[in-house]
């Protein structure tokens, strides 16, 4: 018989589907969420006694829908709106569409586009996506983003209020708007992933949960939009990056550069899956920024790294995203292909004085050119700006090495 933890897991997995279907029925996120909460209370009572239902997803949706109808009917009757109460009564009965994957799939897509609507602040988009589609609790989201629970709760309330009052629709965007809207959705998922991957502060395990959650959302998007190559590109990028997680830091939490990583610690299954997706993307021939970044990671996953190929991919990425940060990453590849002097010329032209990686890359190039005093100064500038402890320690070791040789 399932225990509370099993039931919680099932509800978390099915949360997005259930809320999405119920939002279609009731047109309101709060009603949908409350209904799923009600169904959870019923499950806690019944499942341990009777065993789990054959289709937990269908059970949750049917139970939640009936509870919501009961609630709305009671409220309507209390307010003297008899006609409305009768109408809710008529709505009761077996759920019509829960076994039918087509409409359910569209429900979830609609909800994703609502959560990631550009009229919501990015922080609100992230919180809503994790709450409604990921099924995370407000407390979990607050912990992951290192903000007080009350702050996160208020953020969610305000965002849901805006959806309701400003009339943000539950709708898949028109074809003309789809590329921009899809970019916004992918940006939210990638931000969640990076928040879990790159941050060095807070409870480490909680933050790693964000990577897992982002990959789960990425898989959901891939299931819902298999024909969008950038959706597949983002999934591959996250899988290939996450595959290296165990090799990326030492047991003591120190950062390990890609070139120095113990490749036996890489998750081979994730690498294979990511590389397979990248190959499928290449066959399609509709490149985009996420696909190219995934391809770069796929090349890095083979030994030895084919730097000419990496450089060619960065050339392509720079055409899509002509930003100084992409140019900086490209310069790292240039250093491997054409040598550190050529790379330094490129790096010195970039206006990234406030970015610690810029100084770290310069320091590395200067060191390779034998300009140790300049390299040490650049390392110090990087240490000054580095945001998290693991990166700072890595840079301090590099600085110490530079001075040792001197």
């Amino acid at each position, binding site marked *: 018989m399932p225990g509370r933890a099993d039931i919680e897991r099932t509800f978390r997995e099915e949360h997005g589907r259930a809320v999405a279907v119920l939002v279609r029925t009731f047109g309101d996120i709060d009603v949908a969420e409350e209904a799923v909460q009600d169904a959870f209370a019923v499950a806690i009572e019944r499942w341990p006694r009777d065993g789990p239902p054959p289709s937990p997803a269908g059970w949750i949706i049917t139970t939640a829908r009936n509870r919501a109808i009961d609630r709305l009917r009671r409220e309507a009757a209390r307010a003297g709106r008899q006609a409305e109460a009768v109408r809710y009564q008529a709505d009761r009965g077996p759920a019509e569409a829960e076994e039918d994957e087509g409409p359910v799939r569209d429900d979830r897509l609609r909800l994703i586009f609502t959560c990631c*609507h550009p009229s919501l602040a990015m922080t609100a988009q992230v919180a809503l996506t994790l709450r409604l589609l990921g099924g995370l609790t407000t407390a979990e989201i607050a912990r992951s983003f290192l903000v007080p629970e009350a702050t996160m709760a208020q953020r969610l309330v305000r965002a849901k209020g805006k959806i309701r009052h400003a*009339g943000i629709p539950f709708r898949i965007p028109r074809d003309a708007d789809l590329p921009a809207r899809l970019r916004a959705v992918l940006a939210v998922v990638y931000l969640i992933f990076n928040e879990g991957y790159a941050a060095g502060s807070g409870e480490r395990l909680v933050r790693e949960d964000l990577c897992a959650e982002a990959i789960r959302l990425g898989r959901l998007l891939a299931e819902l939009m298999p024909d969008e190559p950038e959706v597949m590109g983002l999934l591959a990028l996250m899988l290939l990056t996450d595959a290296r997680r165990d090799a990326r830091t030492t047991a003591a939490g120190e950062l390990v550069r890609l070139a120095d990583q113990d490749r036996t610690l890489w998750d081979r299954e994730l690498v294979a899956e990511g590389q397979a997706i990248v190959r499928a993307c290449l066959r399609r021939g509709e490149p985009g920024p996420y696909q190219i970044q995934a391809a770069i990671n796929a090349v890095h996953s083979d030994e030895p790294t084919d730097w000419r190929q990496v450089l060619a991919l960065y050339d392509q990425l720079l055409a899509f995203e002509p930003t100084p940060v992409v140019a900086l990453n490209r310069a790292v590849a240039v250093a491997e292909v054409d040598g550190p002097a050529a790379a330094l010329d490129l790096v010195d032209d970039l206006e990234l004085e406030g970015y610690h990686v810029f100084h770290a890359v310069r320091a590395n190039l200067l060191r390779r050119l034998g300009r140790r005093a300049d390299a040490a100064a650049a390392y110090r500038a990087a240490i000054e700006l580095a945001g998290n402890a693991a990166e700072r320690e890595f840079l301090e070791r590099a600085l110490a090495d530079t001075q040792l040789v001197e």
Partner: protein
Amino acid sequence: MTTYLIAMYQPDGGPPPDMDMEPVMRELEAINDEMRAAGQWVFANGLRDSTTATVVRVRGDEVLTTDGPYLEGKEHLGGFTIVRAPDLDVALGWARRIAKVTTLPVEVRPFHD
């Protein structure tokens, strides 16, 4: 249906002297016509310069009348359109067109209704 305010924000001093306002006004009128045809148009008009504004406010028992505008700044509400639209995306569609034609930043806000 929700009623939306589409507000345009304008730099003080009016449009640059070399800007030909005639095609802008013509295109705005065309958008208004389309809103009317869609049954969504409620109201639209441009405001005179913010230096023509007067502010009225209560101080204790007194009601003070002073020279406006209410908010100091280099940009002020320059005009607005009110539409009744099925959802925010439809209202944003109109707002986008107004922003393009006027090159002004535009704010969309729902009314209580």
